[in-house]
Structure formats: C-alpha cells, structure tokens
C-alpha cells in the first residue's frame, strides 16, 4: 500500500471563511500550511451568507462600540454564550473587516466613503458590513484572493507558488491521526481519483462548518455533514451545545429542488405577511407573554407600523426567528398549511409590483428563476429550515484550541460563541475573528512543541481500511440510509422536541448506526458520489446522536432548543453546558459541565433587571457584590 504523503506545519480542514482566515494567519506567521476542502477552492458554503458581517465600527451610528455588540450577542444567545469568545468577537470584528478591505474587498459605502452598515435582527445599531445581499461571496472571494496573493509572494521568494500554502481541493479528511495524546496529522482521500492521502502535521485546524445535511429541510449544502464535529469527537475532543440548532422560519418549501433555501428576513421587514390556508394572519395568535407589550395585537396597528414606527407596535411577523419558526410549525401540524407543506408568505397584496422589484430584487429573481413564482403576483410558500448549529467543538476562546493538543477549531464547527442562538451577521464576523485566532493558536502551539509528533503507520492502515470498506461491500444503498436519517432528525429532533420523540429518534439512530456499517457503494474509486456519501454517513450519524442525546437531557427551552414538555427557560440550566464525547465512536456520552462565570468587567455592562431574567438567585447575589465593589 503506497499512499501519497504530505508534510505540513498546519493542516486546515475546510476552505470557508474560518478555514481560509486560519490558513492565511498560519502562513503569515511563517508556517507551511495546507488547506484541505471537499469542494473546489472558493465554493464553500460561506458564499450563501447574504446579510453581512457584524462589526461595531460605528460608521452609521457612532454610538456603537464593542460593549453594545457584546451585550447584543449575549442577549441573542440567551446568556449561554462563552463570554470570553463573545468579548473577543465584539472587540476584534472591526479590525477583521477592515483587513478584508485592505485585501481588496469592496463593501457598500456610506456617504462619507466608509463601509456602510445595515440593521439586522437583535443588533441595537446598524452594524452589518455588507455588499448588497452577497456578503458571503465577497468574503470568501477576498480571502481566496488573499491566499493567491500570498502564493504570489512565495513564488517571488521561493520560485514555487505552493511553497508555503497549498490548497488540496476536492479532498476529504476521514480521520485525524495522533501520536499519543497529540495530533500528528490526518488521513483522507481525493474525491477525484479516490486515491488516499496522508497529511503529516503537528497541528490541525477544523473549519468544516455545520451539520445541516442530517436534516431533510436545510439551507445548508451537501458539504455540511458534520465532518469536523465527528473528526474532533473521534480524536478525543469534546462537543458542547449540540442541542442548539437554529431553524430559520422562512425557507422555500417548493419546488423540491430548492426546499430549504432561505427567504430573507427583509421580506417580512418590508411588509410581507404570513397566512395559513384559511387566509388568516396567524402570527397574532402566537405572541408570547414576554413580548405582549412590544407587538401589535391587531392587523390595523401592525400595518400602520410600516409607515409610522414611533407610534405603533411592530407586527408579530417580526418576532424573533425561533418564535416565528415555531408558529409556522404549529400551523402546518394543525393542518392549516399550504399545499406544499408550508405557509403563505405574501408580499404581492401588500406592495405594488414595482416596489417589490425595487426592494427585494434577489428574492424576486430567486423565486422567478427557481420556482417560476412571481412574488409580485402570488404568495410564496415558506417553512422552517435547518440553518445553523450553535454547538460544536469546545475550544479555548483565545487560541481556538480543543482538548486534544494540536487540534484547533473555528467557525460553525466550534461551539460556545453564540450560546443558544446566533444573531444574524455574527456568523461572518465569527469566522474572521476566530479563524485568525485558531491560525495563530496553531502557529504558537507548533513553536512550543518540543518534538514533532509522528504519524503512526498503524493508524493510517486502520483509516485506510475504514475508508475502503464500503467499496468492498455489496450492501444497502447509502442514499436510502441518508434519507432515513434526515427524516428521523427532521421529524423527531426538529424545531419542537418532546422526550418521547427524541428517545424514539435515538433508537432509530442506533439502528441506523448498524445499517451504516453495512452500506455498500458500487463503482470505482474515481469520483464516486455513492462511496463518498457512505463515508460521510459515519459522521452524520455520530453528530445526530450528539444532537439527540443533548436535546433529551436539556429540560428547558432556550434559543435553538425548544422542548414541548419544558416550555420555559430555566436559570439553573443556563449554568450548565452539555458536553459530548465518545470513547471509540460507537456511542456518545453526554455530561453536564458548569458554565464558567462571566468576568466582572463584562457582567457590569448589563442592567440588574435584565440579568435577573436569566441568572439564578445565587448568581444575582454574587452580581450585587460585584456591582457594589
């Protein structure tokens, strides 16, 4: 068995925003860096981000600063966030955005020539640096071009573009390799040829994104199979907050090809209303008690809000994402859904056609081209879609280091930053801030390393055998197992969870685990999607188990985790993190861990009244002590 072998200092897995930013940092610190990604270079899921990157630059409202951003982030995450990450994020996001500009990004501008910033849900001030509705594309292209710029520099000095940073595109890593406790590299295969490859590297940065492909309806691409989550678990690292998954309330439900694709929040912001099959604006029936005084109770008042926001309360269509998602879910379950299983989002009866085209050009285009629906003439059909996982690898806030020495994680695959719910716009800035920190963390780790860990031939052979296994079997079609898993997760561990249903899902996952062991892939190793899926299934099942187990344990509703049987938020649970780990990959154990207490200088940024909604009495007593001192 001869396997292609590459030696690097840092291997970054994933070439989205976080991965590229980490790789750039590692290379800038003089480390030989490999970027390994499943798709082509520049195609990562980051391109799908529309809204913008949140950074308290204060270009539009000069009252904005990192403290306000920090507060917004903590509120959004219902105080479950890792406070140190939220602090670093709020402080460093502006520098990361400015840096992009120096690398060639062209954001939309304010009148005085600065980066323009837009309003978004949960952000107190206009804060999102953006380029129309394609900010993610701008971000990924800028980072991609920065990598190319560094390669050009290397060509100047070393005569080889790839001397210090190389992209291994369409290459999947299936196992991390260890030497004792430490990371020593990774094992993977080229999607194109099916040939195997070993990376010999003392540091690995995971930046693989999320897990959306475990669900039927998702805004995520095929790449989101939880690879990084699973690789980390299998290498002995821990995952936290896996029960928190953000469902975006409005995804397209039809046609099938685009099911789950996002319908931007601004449709509702610009006057779009949600109706059920009876033509009723049902959101008025779903205003929760805590929001009763902030939202309109009649259609007339809600309608007046669009023109006069000072004297009217906003319509309930603009409730937080989780509330709207749950409401839509209930309507559909009660049999009042649209023909294709969503509800109607209608803007056509609300605004003149010309106005719709002017305000929502990309939505008009998206529905016209993908669904042949003219949103100026007929309502859209929308439903909740799996959008983002708040949970991920537990990391050190400052360096992105996971529990396993040499393993780092950044972006969606890492956990903690967003607590139980992520604010729109905080994702792109998260990628940049913690991508850079993970890259720097990896570089510093290598500098402090006494000896380079060695790749164990035994582990390589194990990984090799594991990857080849599905090809040798004539077992079940992997697509069927995948569909089954997606259905299970969607129906039983979806937006609204119940103990019985989640337990049922766990049983189903147990059975799926066995079936995964038996799937077979026909054909050769050359670009064989069936085989690729068979390998990815291991990750999806493992991660799904984490989600389900954590969801079963957390007996409260908070952010992206809603328990029908425990509808309220419970301050005692705020102090607890659920930590997933595995011994050998055959099963997942979840343990409770106490959430670290917020630093004094940060907790003082909040009003007592606000904290009282989230913190336990005991914590409040502590706070009173701090506030006095």
């Amino acid at each position, binding site marked *: 068995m001869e396997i292609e072998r590459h030696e690097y200092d840092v291997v970054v897995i994933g070439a989205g925003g976080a991965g590229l930013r980490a790789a750039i940092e590692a290379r800038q610190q003089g480390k030989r860096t490999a970027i390994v990604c499943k798709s082509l270079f520049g195609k990562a899921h980051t391109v799908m981000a529309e809204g913008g990157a949140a950074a308290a630059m204060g270009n539009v409202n000069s009252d904005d600063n990192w403290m306000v951003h920090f507060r917004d982030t903590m509120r959004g995450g219902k105080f479950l966030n890792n406070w140190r990450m939220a602090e670093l994020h709020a402080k460093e996001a502006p520098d990361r955005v400015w840096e992009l500009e120096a690398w060639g990004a062209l954001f*939309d501008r304010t009148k005085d020539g600065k980066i323009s910033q837009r309003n978004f849900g949960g952000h107190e001030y206009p804060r999102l640096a953006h380029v129309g509705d394609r900010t993610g594309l701008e971000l990924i292209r800028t980072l991609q071009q920065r990598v190319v710029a560094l390669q050009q520099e290397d060509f100047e000095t070393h005569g080889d573009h790839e001397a210090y940073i190389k992209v291994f595109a369409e290459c999947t890593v299936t196992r991390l390799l260890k030497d004792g406790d430490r990371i020593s590299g990774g094992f993977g295969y080229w999607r194109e040829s099916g040939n195997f490859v070993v990376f010999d590297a003392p540091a690995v940065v995971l930046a693989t994104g999320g897990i959306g492909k475990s669900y039927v309806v998702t805004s995520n691409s095929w790449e989101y199979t939880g690879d990084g989550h699973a690789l980390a678990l299998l290498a002995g690292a821990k995952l936290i907050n896996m029960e928190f998954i953000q469902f975006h309330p409005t995804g397209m439900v039809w046609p099938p090809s685009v099911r789950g694709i996002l319908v931007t929040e601004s449709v509702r912001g610009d006057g779009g209303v949600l109706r059920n099959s009876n033509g009723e604006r049902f959101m008025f029936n779903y205003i929760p008690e805590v929001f009763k005084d902030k939202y309109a109770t009649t259609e007339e008042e809600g309608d007046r809000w669009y023109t006069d926001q000072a004297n009217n309360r906003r319509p309930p269509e603009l409730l937080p994402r989780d509330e709207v998602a749950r409401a839509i879910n209930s309507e559909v379950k009660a049999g009042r859904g649209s023909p294709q299983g969503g509800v109607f989002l209608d803007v056509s009866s609300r605004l003149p056609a010309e106005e719709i085209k002017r305000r929502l050009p990309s939505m008009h285009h998206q529905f016209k081209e993908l669904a042949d629906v003219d949103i100026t003439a007929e309502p859209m059909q929308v439903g909740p879609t799996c959008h983002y996982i708040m949970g991920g690898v537990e990391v050190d806030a400052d360096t992105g280091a996971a529990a396993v020495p040499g393993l780092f994680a950044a972006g969606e695959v890492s956990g903690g930053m967003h607590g139980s719910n992520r604010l729109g716009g905080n994702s792109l800035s998260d990628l940049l801030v913690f991508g850079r920190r993970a890259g720097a963390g990896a570089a510093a780790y290598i500098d402090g390393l006494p000896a380079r860990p060695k790749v164990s031939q035994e582990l390589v052979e194990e990984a090799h055998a594991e990857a080849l296994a599905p090809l040798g079997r004539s077992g079940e079609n992997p697509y069927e197992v995948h569909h089954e898993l997606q259905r299970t997760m969607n129906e039983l561990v979806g937006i609204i969870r119940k103990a019985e249903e989640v337990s049922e899902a766990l049983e189903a996952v147990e059975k799926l685990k066995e079936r995964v062991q038996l799937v077979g892939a026909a054909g050769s190793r050359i670009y064989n999607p069936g085989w690729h899926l068979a390998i990815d299934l291991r990750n999806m099942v493992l991660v799904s188990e984490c989600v389900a187990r954590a969801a079963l344990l957390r007996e409260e509703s908070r952010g992206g985790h809603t328990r029908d049987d425990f509808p309220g938020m419970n301050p005692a649970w705020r102090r607890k993190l659920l930590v997933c780990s595995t011994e050998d990959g055959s099963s997942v154990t979840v343990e409770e861990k106490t959430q670290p207490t917020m630093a004094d200088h940060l907790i003082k940024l909040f009003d007592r009244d606000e904290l009282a909604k989230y913190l336990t009495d005991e914590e409040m007593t502590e706070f009173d002590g701090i506030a006095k001192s």
Partner: protein
Amino acid sequence: MSYKAKFKVWRGEGGEGKLEDFTVEVNEGEVVLDIIHRLQATQAPDLAVRWNCKAGKCGSCSMEINGKPRLGCMTRMSTFTEDETITVTPMRTFPVIKDLVTDVSFNYEKAREIPSFTPPEGVRPGEYRMKQVDVERSQEFRKCIECFMCNNICHVIRDHEENKPAFAGPRFLMRIAELDMHPYDVADRQESAQEEHGLGYCNITKCCTEVCPEHIKITDNALIPMKERVADRKYDPIVWLGNKIFKRAK
C-alpha cells in the same frame, strides 16, 4: 404531474466516453441537477457531478445542457417539452475527469497569474475611503461566482486549445478590469492585459455575457472598457502625448 423524460448523459473517464441513454422520472418544479441526482440515487450511483449550494450561488454545477453551458441547478425542467431528449455533457473546454466533472485547474492557474490587489503604501486598514459610485463598477464584477462558464464558452480557447497559455479568458480579464477600476489599486495592469493575458484575442463576440448566470455584462462593462484603456496606453498617440506633457507640467 410527473412524467418520464429521456436523457442522454455523457459518461466516461479521462476523455473517453459516450452518451448514455436514461429514462427517468421528472416531477413538477425540478431542475436538471435534481434529475442527475435521481439518476445517481436510482440508476447510476457512481455518476459523477459536481455541485454544492443548489441555489445558483456557488457556481459548481456548470455543465452543458442541449449544447449550451448552464448551471444544472438553475435550469428548470419546465423549459423543456416532455418528449424532448435532453443531452447533458461536461464543459467542453476543460479536460474531463469523470462523467460531468471536469478539471478546471486552468482557471486557478490563470487566477494566480493576475497580480493581486495592490494598495498604495501607507494606507492602513480602516483608513480606506471610497465613494459608492467609485466602487460600483468593480462590485459588478465581484458578483462573479466563478462557474467558469464564460471561459468554457469562449471560442478563443474552446475551439483552440493552443491558445490556452496566452489567454486568461473572460473571467480573468474581467478580474484585471475589476482591479484596474479599483479606486485604490496602484498596479499597472493595462499593458500586461494585452501583452501577457491575451486581451487582444477577445473578438467581443459576447458569448461570455450570454452565458453568465449572474448576468454580469462582461463584454460591455469589463472587456471593452479594458480594451479602450489598453488603446489609451498602446494605440493612441494623442493620449500618449497628452500624458507626456501633463506629467512634465506636474
């Protein structure tokens, strides 16, 4: 609402291959990529196709459908009649790896040949001040999702493999235009656009603009303005003279 459609899909490895016939179910609202996926899931599990976002935003699923370069995810089945045979082939200009997947490394090599954004010295991050009107032109080009269909359809390299070394293709000539129009870029790009990247090969027959899924006016807004800028520099004695005098006066 579903029916059986006739498909011919090019299958093969490393250039050798042929069109294979399939009859496959089509449901309402589906796109060509859905049908390819159905073939994968039911009849040809190892049928290779590259795809990612399925929403026309990543530019991965470029293929040729009935001879025209298209994104598989943005080509609705309803644009064909039910009795039509739909032919799906890989992009012609690039070497084929397997089935519908081509080796697009040509594009990444060309990207590397274009000197990167070069800001003036001394401008620190955060100090950039640009007016919206000054960035709009380059912003249009930055909408590019790098599906490489413009480079695929451009006859300069599609029909003449031998031109590949000398020609960057519409995608990267547009990248040069983007940087040349960037308010903060100080690199000299006009001579090299002609001399090194083959702008002169373009005969503005506009196929790149026709296939662009982002509807970027590649020819009118990038290539022709770039040709005019090159003409300023290389072919216009009056501008040349004016620049000389102006520079001296300074």
